[in-house]
């Protein structure tokens, strides 16, 4: 009876547990499980340690930042590093708040644009019949695999010729055509039930209404996923704004921070400001992740496995 119960229970276990458990004699399955838990905790601690270290360093008073030996816990909390960062101490012209707002504005504008264009196109690729539809779609998907470095020079020259450098257009417009977004939206829109569209058509809905009133409301989960990925990607983007922005008051937060870091590097206490900058840049993405972790984790899986 006992063995039977165990087998029944084990059947509900995930496969690796049962397989690894089968290696060990009776009863060692739970030993393995605890061992696995301990190793996972250690690995997680290892991968999070640098961020913990950055967080407590950023909250130390500047004098405590670069001590030998370093203190691994926070004894005297202080926000001096953050104040120094926002005031741009040690740097000629560092409007950090402005940079933060620049990042917010361009990331939101990009996100709205990407979601609108991708939902229109994705809906069309999923539900309309037109010549070369699948060829065009696969052309778009193929470009996801082209390394960015191959064409960034051309995009740089193109945006320069279009007079977009040192404007937010250079940050927003080139990113609007996101192949990944169209792919994700199309994969979702294919699964919507056709009856709904038929019923709406019979009720006299026009094509744009089908998109606006049927597709978009039903696509809330994928829109949320898409929006969060796009926002975080633009928020974190560093290379492209670094290339196309030269005016200091147009910088996005990452470009501004890199300039600060370059100007104050070498000085020991500068690490305090550096860690504060790293934390400041991470706050919004982390909040977004904590709110939307389910959508993000599902989004990664959709993006990879259904391809």
């Amino acid at each position: 009876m006992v063995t039977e119960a165990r087998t029944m229970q084990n059947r509900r276990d995930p496969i690796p547990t049962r397989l690894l458990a089968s290696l060990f004699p009776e009863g060692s399955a739970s030993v393995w499980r605890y061992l696995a838990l301990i190793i996972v905790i250690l690995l997680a601690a290892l991968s999070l340690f640098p961020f913990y270290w950055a967080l407590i360093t950023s909250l130390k008073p500047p004098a405590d930042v670069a001590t030998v030996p370093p203190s691994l816990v926070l004894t005297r909390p202080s926000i001096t590093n953050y104040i120094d960062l926002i005031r741009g101490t040690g740097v000629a012209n560092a409007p950090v708040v402005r940079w933060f707002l620049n990042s917010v504005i361009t990331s939101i504008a990009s996100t709205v644009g990407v979601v609108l264009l991708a939902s229109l196109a994705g809906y069309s690729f999923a539900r309309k019949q037109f010549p070369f539809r699948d060829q065009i779609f696969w052309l778009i998907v193929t470009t996801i695999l082209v390394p960015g470095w191959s064409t960034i020079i051309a995009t740089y020259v193109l945006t320069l010729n279009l007079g977009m450098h040192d404007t937010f257009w250079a940050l927003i417009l080139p990113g609007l055509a996101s192949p990944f977004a169209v792919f994700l939206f199309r994969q979702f829109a294919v699964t919507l039930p056709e009856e709904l569209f038929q019923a709406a058509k019979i009720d006299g809905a026009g094509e744009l209404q089908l998109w606006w009133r049927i597709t978009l409301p039903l696509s809330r989960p994928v829109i949320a996923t898409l929006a969060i990925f796009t926002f975080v990607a633009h928020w974190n983007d560093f290379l492209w704004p670094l290339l196309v922005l030269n005016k200091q008051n147009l910088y996005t937060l990452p470009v501004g921070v890199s300039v600060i870091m370059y100007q104050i590097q070498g000085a020991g206490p500068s690490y305090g400001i550096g860690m504060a900058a790293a934390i400041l840049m991470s706050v919004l993405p982390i909040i977004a992740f904590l709110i939307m972790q389910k959508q993000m984790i599902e989004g990664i899986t959709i993006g990879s496995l259904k391809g």
Partner: protein
Amino acid sequence: MNATNQVNNQTLRAPSRRLAGKMTYATVEKLWGFLLIAPFMIFFTIFVLVPYGMVIWLSFVDWHPRGVTEYVGLQNYIDVVSTTVARKAMFNSFYFALMVVPLSTVLSLLTAVLIISLRSRGLRSFFQATFYLPGVISGLSVAIIWRFVFDYHVGILNFFLSVLGVEAINWLGDVYTALPSLAGMAILSGNGVAIIIFCAALLSVPADLYNAAAVDGANFWRQQWSITLPLITPALLYVIVVSTLGALQVFVPVFVLTRGGPVHSTMTVGYYIYNQLIFYANTGTAAAAGLLLLIITIGLTVFQFRRFSQVVEF
């Protein structure tokens, strides 16, 4: 077919107000299909397709923002292939990818197996989230943090070494350790996405297959080789292809931690292209290097696909 053509011919001549009424359902459908993808396609054409053509053109000319653009034939390619720095950059990018891709793939797969073997669903999603968290933090933040970790005098890594009684290592300042240090950082901080993908793949393997194999007398390793591996191969391939692409293009860590030095030991293709474009205003060499990278990546991706389809059948 003929009927549709006739209707089409009629509609072409019809006044626009009556157009919609006379067109067949299929024609309207086609028109709307194109209309709905049009906004996306305009931006896609301008900012994705046109640059493909432009980069080829740029690689054959000597381009000046406000001057004469001159055709130089293969000179840009010759410059890239013959200069020591560019060759070093190609070599370093491969060396970097070779260090990062296998180790981080194995580490993520191992972590995923461990996470999946946890009993409670709550714990599983907690750890998935924990491992993914660093993935939403910008590469710039991660690099700034690791510069502090690697610092020769006050870095936490050398502090741990000193606790163990090992002499401090000049991680970023030594020709031999700089690139491996960057690789170590990439291996430890960039696994979130891969772990999530492996977890999903491992969970999707149907349990019945193992039972059936066990009945047929297959042992544990045999089951892994014949069931788990083939079924997670698409995920494995995806992770390897994507992480190879990422590793070959590494830029931000180089920019923040070493600026290509010491003595070009961390000069990568990405940093080389950036340098050529921004500091030397050499769009030609930058474009040629970018295209060479593209050709190499395509070759590598095709090779990885072939290799995998030899090992297991999809």
